[in-house]
């Protein structure tokens, strides 16, 4: 039990619990978003990987993950004091979240830990061996996610102490997952016989994106950890940035490809949601519009031109959208943050505080480097021990039949 009992606030608790449910729904949402983008023969491969993230990490998190990320430790990682949720009870733990049960904070954080490795799936889609995926994800949670979460959000964490602003996970979640995605895509190499997304079911992509948008209100506004003005601000800027980015991606397509597409529009929305994530509790509506309008321009360029040039197979653009969008958002936070929005935050460069921008750059660089190196090591180890990529006949047959012995749709019945 926490040492300082503090009263539980019903409104705040209701808000954090429902936010947790919303964030939980994002992982199946992501499954659909990604699942609709692959070829018919690989859709269950995607859904399975996402749902296994939800199941596996939910368990690992209560067993040791939460303790490793948020428990007492050093500047880089927590400890095992809270393993099996020992001492994580129904009372509040005010150092993280006064007013709500410690367990509510813990489970809210669990959903962030679930979705982060799930994001990476987009980069190595259609070609990873399932058993290796399970091992990869376990190692990645332990050696990449938990440390980064601790450094950015944990008591005593080194980037937290440095003063890096990351309201809801721009570095911890998006840059982290995006870079890991790039590394896995490079490590595995291209898919066999295709270099295009399959896009077998665009309505699924749209349902998925809608659930992501919906869930992101919990992700960002829930990160206020209270039902107050700051939550409302986060909610509003989240919606605004998503909307602005959807429009500007559609516009980019209208200019460069002749017509705005459905896939592009929702990709833009997701890019906007990614970019506003670190900023949601620190910027106002003007900042949200700027972030939203610009992030799609950058991500579109990345996905449509740079990727094609460089030739890596970031299948569903986890790097192009989450990595790039997350980095942009984290830096933009250093420009556009305002104490007027959140007195517990800081002013950014545009509000007279250049130091904050430097800090943000440092945090981004550190995350990029750490995530890249450790992810590469994990890929290497798993590959040597059990092989990371599916056998080529399995890849040709499709992951659904080869990895899971089932098919997504019957043809005749």
């Amino acid at each position: 039990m926490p040492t300082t009992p503090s009263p539980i606030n019903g409104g705040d608790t209701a808000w954090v619990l429902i936010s947790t449910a919303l964030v939980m729904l994002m992982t199946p949402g992501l499954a659909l978003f990604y699942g609709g983008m692959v070829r018919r023969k690989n859709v269950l491969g995607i859904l399975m990987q996402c749902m296994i993230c939800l199941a596996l990490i939910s368990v690992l998190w209560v067993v040791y993950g939460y303790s490793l990320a948020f428990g007492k430790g050093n500047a880089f990682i927590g400890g095992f004091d809270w393993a099996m949720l020992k001492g994580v009870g129904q009372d509040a733990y005010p150092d993280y979240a006064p007013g709500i049960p410690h367990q509510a904070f813990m489970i809210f954080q669990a959903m962030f830990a679930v979705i982060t490795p799930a994001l990476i799936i987009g980069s190595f889609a259609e070609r990873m061996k399932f058993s290796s995926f399970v091992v990869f994800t376990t190692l990645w949670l332990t050696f990449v996610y938990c440390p980064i979460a601790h450094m950015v959000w944990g008591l005593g964490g080194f980037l937290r102490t440095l003063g890096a602003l990351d309201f809801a996970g721009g570095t911890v979640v998006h840059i982290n997952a995006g870079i890991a995605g790039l590394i896995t895509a490079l490590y595995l190499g291209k898919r066999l016989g295709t270099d295009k997304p399959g896009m077998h079911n665009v309505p699924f992509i749209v349902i998925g994106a809608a659930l992501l948008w919906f869930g992101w209100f919990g992700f960002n506004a829930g990160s206020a950890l209270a039902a107050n003005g700051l939550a409302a601000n986060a909610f509003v800027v989240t919606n605004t940035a998503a909307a602005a980015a959807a429009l500007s991606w559609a516009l980019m397509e209208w200019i460069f490809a002749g017509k705005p597409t459905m896939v592009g529009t929702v990709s833009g929305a997701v890019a906007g949601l990614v970019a506003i994530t670190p900023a949601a509790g620190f910027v106002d509506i003007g900042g949200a519009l700027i972030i939203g309008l610009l992030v799609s321009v950058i991500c579109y360029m990345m996905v449509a031109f740079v990727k094609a040039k460089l030739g890596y197979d970031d299948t569903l653009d986890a790097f192009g959208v989450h990595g790039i969008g997350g980095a942009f958002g984290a830096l933009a936070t250093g420009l556009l943050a305002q104490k007027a929005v959140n007195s517990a935050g800081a002013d950014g460069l545009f509000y007279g505080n250049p130091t904050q921008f430097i800090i943000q750059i440092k945090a981004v660089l550190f995350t990029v480097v750490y995530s890249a190196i450790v992810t590469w090591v994990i890929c290497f180890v798993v590959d040597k021990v059990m092989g990371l990529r599916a056998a080529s006949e399995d890849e040709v047959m499709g992951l659904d039949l080869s990895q899971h012995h089932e098919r997504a749709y019957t043809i005749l019945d």
Partner: protein
Amino acid sequence: MKLIIAIIQPHRLDDVKRELYAADVNLITVSEVLGHGRQVGVDEFYRGVKETGNLLRKIQVEIAVNEDYVEPSIKAIIKGARTGKIGDGKIWVLDLPRVIRIRTGEEGSKAIG
């Protein structure tokens, strides 16, 4: 007897059916196919990547008929399917030496209709 196979534009199916019924050809089998021909498809774009649409949706209509229905059927298909634009499709006529009605076991001309 002949087996007539027609590849037509999807949006002409209703007209083709109407013309066939008008010509007293009432038994048909229809399926969805993809065609590559002279007709140029629309380019598709997915996340900025262009995909030249080279397989277009078409409808395949199969009709087994007695000899004296061959010309009327072909005329009806053309009447229903022709738009005059590239992509209207083809009609193939194959010899059909033998036809059996599963329900009765009847063969030949009387099984066809």
